[in-house]
């Protein structure tokens, strides 16, 4: 398998809820859409290693992250999966700069000065220079989300999982960050799975493939244009209709 291709084929359970997903991708970002409670977050959490699937296999590049048959389950730190959770997951005891620097791999920046510079650059990219020395408790919702995004990007993971990464952002920030994210993902040649409720994200990210999840099952997959043109469900139809300003 090429370094940037990945494959997820799992059944995962959260309480009574069950998600069965078979997905694959390469360096281009993949988008997951679906109504509230359809299992998008559950799916991402299984990939990052928060929850062990009941069945199946997860591969990213040459690494097998999970294999029920082979009894393989890498711990989260060995998976090289970057994760921006829906609730941001900022460390309350670290400043914004500290949160971002937390993700810098030791190999990437051996010196303190270098690390600080990297963190500052990442914060600048998400428009957060001004809040670098503040603690998360004092941030606005959108500010928190930007910091979480900057932290995940700096870690240079093998695959990036973003759970509604722009939901709390204002329209201007949404537009610039969407563009910067698209550039980052495509330039870096690193795969990503992005969950979103906004069809404009799908197009702006240039995602070649969308998976639509409903009730824990993948109900449709394909290029965004395909799904928009012939939606398999009412939800998919509405999703793309809303995104085009209806």
């Amino acid at each position: 398998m090429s370094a940037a291709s990945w494959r997820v084929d799992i059944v995962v359970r959260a309480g009574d809820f069950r998600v069965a997903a078979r997905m694959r991708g390469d360096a281009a970002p993949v988008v997951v859409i679906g109504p509230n409670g359809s299992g998008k977050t559950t799916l991402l959490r299984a990939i990052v290693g928060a929850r062990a699937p009941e069945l199946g296999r997860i591969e990213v590049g040459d690494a097998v992250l999970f294999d029920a048959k082979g009894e393989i389950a890498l711990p989260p730190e060995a998976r090289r999966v970057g994760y921006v959770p829906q609730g941001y997951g900022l460390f309350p005891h670290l400043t914004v700069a500290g949160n971002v620097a937390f993700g810098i791999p030791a190999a990437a920046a051996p010196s303190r000065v270098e690390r600080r510079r990297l963190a500052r650059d990442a914060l600048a990219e998400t428009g957060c220079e001004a809040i670098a020395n503040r603690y998360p408790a004092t941030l606005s919702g959108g500010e928190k989300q930007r910091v979480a995004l900057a932290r995940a990007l700096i870690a240079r993971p093998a695959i990036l999982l973003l759970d509604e990464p722009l939901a709390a952002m204002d329209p201007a920030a949404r537009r610039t960050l969407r563009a910067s994210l698209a550039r980052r993902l495509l330039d870096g040649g690193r795969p990503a799975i992005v969950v979103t409720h906004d069809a404009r994200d799908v197009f702006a990210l240039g995602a070649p493939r969308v998976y639509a999840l409903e009730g824990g099952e993948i109900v449709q997959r394909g290029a965004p244009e395909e799904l928009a043109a012939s939606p398999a469900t009412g939800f998919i139809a509405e999703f793309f209709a809303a995104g085009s300003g209806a």
Partner: protein
Amino acid sequence: MTPPQPPTARVPLLAALPMLALLALPLVALAGASSPGDIAVGARHPLFLPALWLSARTTVVTVAIIVLAGTPAAWWLATRPGRAPRIVEVLVDLPIVVPPAVMGIALLEAFGRNGLLGPALAAVGVRIPFTTPAVILAQLVVAAPFYIQGSAAAFRRIDPELILVARSLGKSAAGAFLRVVLPLALPGMIAGAALAWARALGEFGATLFFAGNFTGVTQTMPLAIYTALESDTRLAIALAVVLVGASALLLLPLRAVPALVSRRLGAPDPASPHHRSPS
């Protein structure tokens, strides 16, 4: 301008007062029962300095061991699901129930010449009872439960999502523990350590039995006070007042830390009218 305060702001202090007064009253009475002259006599008494120094040394070692060895135990109790940890948790409480004198006997039965580990220890040439390590052991057993339970409670309140994020950012389980769990649990851990330290400092019964009352070797402040009580109640009170005063000075910075850390993390807003503001 001070923002106007809602009328409910002062009710809790009124409700808190009876208990605080009850706890303060004996201390005030104790201080009142000893004059500065008594205290000067106490400070010059030959028992005083060796005992204070021994208490300081042993309790520092005790608390250090408690924190080092008790933290993994607390983490295990806090994160392990199932029934076994609940039973272990009760086991951790039990040393508190055992009257200290009986705990001294129990320690002799465990580490004494004829105790469970006695022969094994003797074989390697180690004798614990009636030595300074025995003082530490006695303090350990009576004080550790307070630290373990306090920090387990702190660990239980850590959001597991933060550990997950830390590990997804490449930190090992141990790394996430050190860099995320520890700083967040610090206030609870320090509060537990303060209780444990206070308990170790006041420890008397188990030490008397297990370590004996050897000046300079096992005679801690509480034992010195006990010895002084034999001949002179006022001297004993004066020594106790000195002990309490010294402890207060050491506890004050310790107690300031958790509040400072919590304030930063939770950022409960001092301007918020539904929190009480200083008045």
